[in-house]
């Protein structure tokens, strides 16, 4: 009964999304303010019904209702309760339900926080969001109903959740990632609404900025969590594989990062406005492309969902409709946003443009590398290829190094133009400081770095030095309060530097060994000794394990590591659980391979310096992006459209945009 109610709730949410789209878009077109206000109610209704539908599925998992096909396929009575909840989004149908729930939350957030935007603009934005949600909900109901029953003969027990997914990382990674993916629908909707209402001044850029920041922060966290999960759970010790599914989340991130920067120029200087619009449309379109790649099974990936051609076809059609519609609208109306804002060669505008150029080229590289195997297969009539990480690294790394070099200069440079001579002196000082620091760090590490590694080290410290110098300069100039937006930007840029340092140093200094060890044998690597004590039997709530015991001596520090090889009772699948000693400067990573003859085991031993910095940097970036949203000027914006002066449709709102 409960699953049927959940199904009904989703159907009602779909009906409301249609109503919301009609009320918002048609209402704004006709200038009927009552209709436009009703669009917000339709949004709240959708959130309510999505929450009910989602709760119904959670309930079905918690009470082990194996008559529901999706529950039977992804749960088991032995599964611990927290994984029963996270199993809701462990496979295609349920994760799509989570996706639409998060869409509902974003829409409601827009309806709740943007009451002071001009009504016509808000109604159109909500209408577009409802339209998108309607697309997702139809996809869910037509091709991927999570409430489908297995009647009249339900199985006695479920097939279990994939053991790789029985993990804290999976509890948090998909909700964060989806919050980012779906959040990009808000700048998309704002861009479409701006085009529809011909409101192409820089006001819409200002309204978009906080939403873009938050969506971007979620996406950053989601990607970092996925990378961290892959590192400790997949048992290979890698943190990024250029796998199509990873690329699917990385492409919208690159576009959203470009959008963040381009929005700054559009808001503050009215520059690149039509380009910014295009980026807003692109970022969400790439989210949809990502959904297509993950859910259609067209590409080889270690963690794609199972193959189903109808689903792929549906998303492809939806993608074509959304992208085609948005681009057509942009083609017709976008020209009006064209602006020729003059700026000197050494201006912040130039550096933001350079940032966008680099990010878009990087995006093109990733897109090409991801889709080329598909095109190749189609063109050659079925020959299958894959493009390996070396190809991506060869093109992506230099682009990011150039970006890092430019990032050091960017914040120093003022809008319009800067005094080249004074700038040069400051930069030279910063360069000297960062070169000195790099030399010092290089000596402390006591290892020889490759040219690329040394360059990355220098550039990471270059960003730290320039950000620090700029902060000091601001303090000295006596600006009593440095705005939060500035702190946010600085933190995010420092986060980029920290990630860059982490990537470079991990890449340079990691030691990875597969060894064969007999019980009692000791293996020494990079000053760390591993004594293999043997393997004992152990058991968990829903698995039995062989637990390896390692006595590790890391330069006088003793610790024990106990990696496991688990066999899950329900599905019989085997999984490797690595044991990791995490540290700010070094991770020690041990995982069990296979049992060999004579009690020997194949053992994977990694020593990974600075690997935590990769995710630490992402955390800083996400925090910085969120901090900037709390800046005073977004609250001032709220005051400008004071209550009681709720704008009517077509009111030329936000004409003045003093910073």
């Amino acid at each position, binding site marked *: 009964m409960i699953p049927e109610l959940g199904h009904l709730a989703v159907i009602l949410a779909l009906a409301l999304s249609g109503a919301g789209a009609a009320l918002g878009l048609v209402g704004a077109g006709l200038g009927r303010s009552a209709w436009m206000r009703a669009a917000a109610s339709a949004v709240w209704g959708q959130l309510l019904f999505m929450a009910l539908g989602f709760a119904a599925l959670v309930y079905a998992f918690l009470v082990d209702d194996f008559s529901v096909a999706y529950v039977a*396929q*992804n749960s088991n009575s032995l599964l611990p309760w927290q994984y029963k909840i996270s199993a809701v989004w462990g*496979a*295609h*149908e349920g994760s799509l339900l989570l996706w639409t729930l998060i869409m509902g939350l974003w829409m409601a957030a827009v309806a709740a926080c943007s009451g002071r935007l001009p009504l016509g603009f808000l109604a159109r934005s909500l209408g577009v969001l409802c339209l998108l949600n309607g697309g997702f909900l139809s996809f869910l109901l037509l091709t991927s109903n999570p409430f489908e029953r297995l009647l009249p003969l339900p199985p006695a027990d479920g097939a279990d959740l*994939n053991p*790789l997914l029985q993990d804290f990382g999976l509890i948090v990674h998909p909700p964060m990632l989806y919050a980012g993916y779906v959040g990009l629908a808000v700048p998309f909707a704002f861009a479409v609404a701006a085009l529809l209402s011909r409101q192409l001044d820089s006001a819409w850029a200002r309204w978009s900025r906080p939403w873009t920041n938050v969506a971007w922060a979620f996406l950053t966290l989601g990607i970092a969590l996925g990378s961290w999960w892959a590192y400790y759970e997949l*048992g290979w010790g890698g943190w990024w594989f250029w796998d199509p599914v990873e690329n699917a989340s990385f492409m919208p991130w690159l576009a959203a990062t470009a959008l963040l920067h381009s929005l700054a120029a559009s808001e503050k200087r009215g520059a690149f406005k039509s380009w910014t619009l295009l980026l807003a449309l692109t970022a969400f379109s790439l989210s949809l492309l990502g959904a297509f790649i993950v859910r259609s*099974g*067209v*590409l*080889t990936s*270690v*963690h*794609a*969902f*199972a*193959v*189903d051609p109808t689903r792929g076809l549906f998303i492809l059609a939806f993608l074509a409709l959304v992208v085609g519609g948005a681009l057509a609208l942009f083609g017709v109306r976008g020209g009006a946003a064209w602006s020729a804002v003059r700026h000197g060669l050494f201006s912040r505008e130039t550096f933001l443009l350079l940032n966008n150029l680099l990010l878009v*080229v990087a995006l*093109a*590289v990733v897109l*090409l*590398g991801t889709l*080329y*195997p598909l095109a*190749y297969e189609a063109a050659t009539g*079925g*020959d*299958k*290829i*894959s*493009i*390996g990480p*070396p*190809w991506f690294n*060869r*093109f992506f790394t230099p682009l990011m190094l150039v970006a890092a070099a430019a990032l050091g200069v960017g914040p120093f440079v003022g809008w319009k133009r800067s005094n080249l001579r004074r700038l040069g002196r400051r930069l030279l000082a910063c360069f000297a400081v960062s070169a000195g620091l790099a030399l010092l760090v290089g000596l402390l590490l006591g290892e020889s770095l490759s040219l690329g590694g040394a360059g990355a080290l220098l550039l990471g410290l270059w960003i730290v030095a320039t950000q620090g110098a700029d902060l000091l300069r601001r303090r000295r100039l006596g600006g009593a309060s440095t705005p939060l937006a500035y702190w946010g930007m600085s933190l995010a840029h420092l986060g980029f530097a920290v990630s860059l340092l982490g990537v470079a140093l991990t890449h340079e200094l990691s030691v990875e060994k*597969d*060894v*064969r060890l007999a019980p009692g044998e000791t293996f020494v690597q990079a000053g760390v000794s591993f004594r293999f004590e043997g393997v004992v039997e152990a058991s968990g709530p829903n698995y039995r394990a062989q637990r390896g015991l390692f006595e590790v001596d890391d330069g006088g520090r003793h610790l024990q590591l106990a990696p496991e*090889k688990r066999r899950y009772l329900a*599905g019989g*699948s*085997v*999984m*490797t659980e690595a044991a990791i000693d995490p540290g700010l400067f070094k991770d020690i990573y041990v995982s069990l*391979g*296979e049992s*060999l*003859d*004579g009690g020997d085991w*194949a053992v*994977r031993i990694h020593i990974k310096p600075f690997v935590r910095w990769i995710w630490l940097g992402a955390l800083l970036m996400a925090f910085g992006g969120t901090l900037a949203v709390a800046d005073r000027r977004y609250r001032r914006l709220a005051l400008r459209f004071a209550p009681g002066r709720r704008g009517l449709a077509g009111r030329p709102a936000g004409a003045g945009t003093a910073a």
Partner: protein
Amino acid sequence: MPPKRRNRLLAVAFVLVGAAAAVWLLLLAANESLNLFYPPHKVVNGDAPVGVGIRAGGMVLEGSVQRAPETLQVAFTLTDRQGADFQVLYDGILPDLFREGQGILVRGQLDASRVFQAEEVLAKHDENYMPPELMSLPTNGGSGLASPAEPH
């Protein structure tokens, strides 16, 4: 042609030529580093090149897995169960889902004696997911490659 329009046309042409050149270079590099997939019969009949990075796949022949006594070296045979099979050598840890009778992918090179020197061995990610490369191989009655389209 008015100079303004000519300038714009030149700019567009410049961007187009630049983008085309960039894509061409990227694809050229991709052709060097891409890994073509070969099913067992193409490895056996000589279609697959020697000494070039490729990928191949098939089912692990029952009873063919042999390990070295002191090291991590392992040898096994991949087959399509239609008469074509080839030997694979690998030095490292096999994935959890590597089993006899299981469909797997290997990445590496064929050596001069047409033995596949694998750098990486990939097994199915879980019971339901099947690498698209292996979908075209015949199934073997129930186990291994059966029912790849089952949603999970």
